[in-house]
């Protein structure tokens, strides 16, 4: 840990259910929501604690983990790609579907693009080749179409629904 050109200044984040977590400015910068806090004139890094009422300690630390890992392994040789892939897989393995969706919300609230894109891809992978029913159930979406409307959609896009197994 020799190279720390950054000044000794961390950003204090307070999740809704835990103690303050300190992050480096480099990590904080990637969270747009935090960044706009920091850019505010009244912000004093040494004393201000940023409250995050919509983010749990678990979610926050997951997001920080991801950013830490990926910012350290950026722009390095090919063999790192393998371990990055492994990290990503492990990262998702620890998340049940509900937790994954909640984490997606947290990433969206913090507006951290890298994590958001990664999680959107993970969710997309889960609903790939699945029926409408599955997607509804997965996201807890209430169908607000009338029977006629839904039939109309299925008829207009019959090509897409052909051969999809309803479950």
């Amino acid at each position, binding site marked *: 840990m020799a190279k720390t050109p950054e000044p000794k200044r961390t950003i204090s984040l307070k999740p809704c259910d835990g103690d303050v977590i300190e992050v480096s400015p480099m990590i904080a910068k990637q969270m747009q929501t935090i960044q706009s806090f920091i850019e505010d004139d009244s912000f004093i890094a040494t004393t201000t604690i940023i409250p995050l009422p919509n983010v749990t300690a678990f979610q926050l630390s997951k997001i920080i983990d991801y950013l830490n890992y990926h910012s350290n392994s950026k722009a390095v040789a090919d063999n790192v790609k393998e371990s990055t892939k492994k990290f990503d897989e492990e990262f998702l393995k620890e998340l049940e579907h509900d937790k994954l969706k909640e984490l997606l919300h947290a990433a*969206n609230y913090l507006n951290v693009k890298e994590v958001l*894109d990664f999680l959107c891809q993970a969710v997309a992978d889960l609903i790939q080749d*699945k029926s*409408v029913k599955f*997607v509804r159930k997965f996201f807890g979406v209430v169908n607000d179409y009338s029977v006629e409307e839904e039939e109309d959609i*299925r008829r207009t896009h019959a090509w*897409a629904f052909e051969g999809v197994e309803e479950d």
Partner: protein
Amino acid sequence: MEHVPVEMIGNILSHLGSARDIVIASATCKKWREALHNHLHTLSFKSSDSPLYHEVTPNRLEILITKTILQTRALQCLTISMDDVHEFSGAPAIAWLILVNPKIVVSDSHASMELSRSSLKDFYVEPFGLDKFILEADLLENLHLKNCTFEVFELFGKVKVLKIDDVSVIHLDIGENTENLEIVDVSNFTIMWPKCYHMISKASNLHRLRLWGVDFYDEDEVVDMETNSICFPRLMNLYLSYELRDGVLNYGMQGFLFW
């Protein structure tokens, strides 16, 4: 998940990529449908995605692709890859661009197409055939043409990545704005060397140049490389595989290589 912002749904749909999955998922409820309309930024039609693309007639395939594209208003990245579908042409499918953008001029809807679409960033089409194709896109960063046939192809924009594979173009004009070009990848292509030289000579940011399996066609014009030696200060990767027609080009290539 009922409070999912519609932008995020658009992002999830975009990561699905395949048009079929997107259409299915967007049928879940009205909000998801709205996401398809207003927030979908990536859409792809690949013949490998669904056996159905092989089962319908090319004509019907063009219609269903066009219809799907027409529902989107925020598309940035469009991929149409139907390389193994017989007689398919992407032309009618991207005619939607004309419909949604009044800036586009069409002189002959079938043979000629002039396209300007400001939000488009990535453009990948295969196969695609037109007599005349003029593409004007300010934000276009990636242009990938594969298995395409044009008599005239003109591009106005500031592309960073240009990939041409198995394309037949009699008249290729990339305009004067080549200073943003970073990657040029040309394979299975007959190059009019003076033109090509003129085109890339200003690409001072070029860092990857690949000319693979290309055929240099020189309209008996001697390329004088000594007075016009090319300088690519950032070039990191150079791949060449070409056939020489005569000694003139050999000389030309030497001048080209010793910048």
